Structures are given as structure tokens and as C-alpha cells.
């Protein structure tokens, strides 16, 4: 009876979530996240394309630094870069078998993300107080759309990190390699979010 039950359970296991598939050389989750990131490139790419269309088609286009808060956005850029380092350090410590330090670095990543979102909240509230809304002009429409979508991605990352700090961390006891792979996958997503900001910041604030 137990033997049957264990065979049935093994059949339900998703294969290659720890060790690489022989044909791709990757565990399935990693190929999955890269395919997802490819779709994300298209999502943000469509918005960058829209920005180019609006800007090149406009008679005049405001320069972001004339009214946006560049020092605060620069601070946010440093924070996001720092969070990319903390997440990759978390992954490295997990590979060394050190869950405690891994969790410290994941917590630092979450903290960076929350600082970023708080600063963005200050920026948005300032714009609204000054009467600058998405409906005001095309620049602000694309600014709020792109930074808002990026902020949602940050929020999504925070939720996933919190899951792996909380209930998701139980996986470490039984399958530490699988847990480490999960953090690598979230990390890849997080680096992509950082990458998007690396281009958003100069395009919206400095040009």
C-alpha cells in the first residue's frame, strides 16, 4: 500500500527542478524564468517603442530633470543596484550552505525594495500635489505608465521574497538545492527589474 502510494507520488513530481535536464543543460525552472523574462522584454519594449513614437512625434518634449526629483531618483537607482548585489550574495551564501546569511541578504533585498517604493511614493505624491497627473501631457502619461508598471514589478518581487523568507523557507530543510535554485530564479527576475530601471532612469529623468 505504502509502496503504491510512494510510486504515485513520484509520478506526480515535476522532473528536473533540481538537476539539469540532459538536453537543455538547465533545470526546468531556469528555462521557464528566461522565457518569462523574454516576454517581459516585449512588454517593456512596447512601452519604450511608444515613448520613442510620442517623443519623436511631438513638437516639444519636456526634459524630465526640469521638474522631476533627480536626486531622489538617483538615490533610488543606487538602492536598486544595491538590492541586485544583496540578492546575488544571498544566492551565493545559500550555495555555501549558509541559510542564516542567505536569509539576511534576502531581508536586505526586501528592505531595499521597500525603500525604493517609499521614495517612489514620495515622488508620486509630490507630482500630484503640483497638479501633474497622467492626463496632463504625453510625457507624464508615459512616465506614470512606465514607472508604475516597474513599481508593480518591484512589489511582485517583494511578495515572492517574503514568501521565501517565510513559509517557502521550509523547503530548505528537505531540499536545500531546490530552495537555492528558487532564489536563483527570483534573483534573475530581480536583476531584470534592475535592468529596466537602468534604462528608465536616464530616459525619463535625464534626457
Amino acid at each position, binding site marked *: 500500500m505504502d509502496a503504491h502510494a510512494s510510486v504515485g507520488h513520484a509520478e506526480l513530481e515535476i522532473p528536473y527542478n533540481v538537476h539539469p535536464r540532459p538536453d537543455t543543460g538547465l533545470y526546468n525552472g531556469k*528555462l521557464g524564468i528566461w522565457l518569462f523574462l523574454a516576454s517581459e522584454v516585449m512588454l517593456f519594449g512596447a512601452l519604450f*517603442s511608444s515613448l520613442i513614437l510620442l517623443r519623436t512625434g511631438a513638437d516639444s518634449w519636456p526634459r524630465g530633470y526640469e521638474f522631476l526629483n533627480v536626486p531622489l531618483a538617483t538615490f533610488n537607482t543606487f538602492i536598486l543596484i544595491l538590492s541586485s548585489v544583496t540578492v546575488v550574495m544571498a544566492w551565493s551564501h545559500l550555495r555555501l550552505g549558509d541559510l542564516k546569511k542567505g536569509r539576511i541578504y534576502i531581508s536586505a533585498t526586501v528592505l531595499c525594495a521597500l525603500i525604493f517604493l517609499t521614495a517612489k511614493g514620495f515622488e508620486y505624491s509630490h507630482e500630484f500635489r503640483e497638479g501633474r497627473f497622467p492626463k496632463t501631457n504625453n510625457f507624464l502619461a508615459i512616465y506614470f505608465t512606465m514607472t508604475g508598471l516597474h513599481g508593480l514589478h518591484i512589489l511582485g518581487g517583494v511578495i515572492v521574497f517574503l514568501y521565501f523568507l517565510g513559509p517557502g523557507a521550509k523547503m530548505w530543510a528537505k531540499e536545500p538545492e531546490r530552495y537555492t535554485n528558487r532564489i536563483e530564479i527570483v534573483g534573475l527576475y530581480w536583476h531584470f527589474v534592475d535592468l529596466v530601471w537602468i534604462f528608465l532612469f536616464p530616459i525619463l529623468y*535625464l534626457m
Partner: protein
Amino acid sequence: MTDPAAAVEPGVDIHEHAGIGDPNAHRHSPEQIRKEMKVYLAVFIGLAVLTAVTVGACYGLKLPVHQAILVALIIASIKGFLVAAFFMHLLSEKKVIYGVLILTVIFFIFLMMLPVSHHANPFGS
């Protein structure tokens, strides 16, 4: 000729690109992982310096629009390369991921070209 791979424990990756080992290798030596952590910190410093240079050039010097676009995009591309190459380990990834990314880049370039085609043949003209 001695195979260097034979001198280390089986399954431990010894191949690396710019200090970063194969991220898909089943195991890495602790020394290799610590070496990678130093590379990550160096990349962080590089990214921070490049951010400061971008802000200094475009915001501090108030460059004309065309120069600001050129400087900002060149520096952003370098920063993007550092993040993708080192943090996302694209320096030493598997071919299937490069395949996915090449397709993505082709479609991304197509997306960026759409506004050009619009201005070349605007509606209503």
C-alpha cells in the same frame, strides 16, 4: 598533459569566465563561490560609479539633448551589460538561453523600429 579537471572533486565546476563559474554546474568549490562574491562587489562599485557619471554628465553639466541621449544610453548600455553578464551569469550560460535571447533581441529591435517606420510613412499624408 594533466587534465586540470581530474585534480578536483568530481562534479565541482572549475570552468569560469571573468571570475564567474558555470551557474548550472551541479556544485562549486567554496573558494570559487567566494571568488565570485568578490566579483559581484566589484561590479556593484562599477555600477555605482557609472550611475554617478551619468547623473554628473546629464544633470550636472546640463548637456544638450542629443549629447545627453548619447551619453546616457552608452552608459546605460554598459551598466546593462554588467548586470546581465555578471549578476545574471550570461557570460557562461547554456546555448538554449542564448537562443531565447537572440530571438528576443530580434523582436525587440523590430519593436524599436516601429516608430521609425511610422515617421517614414505617417498616416494621413
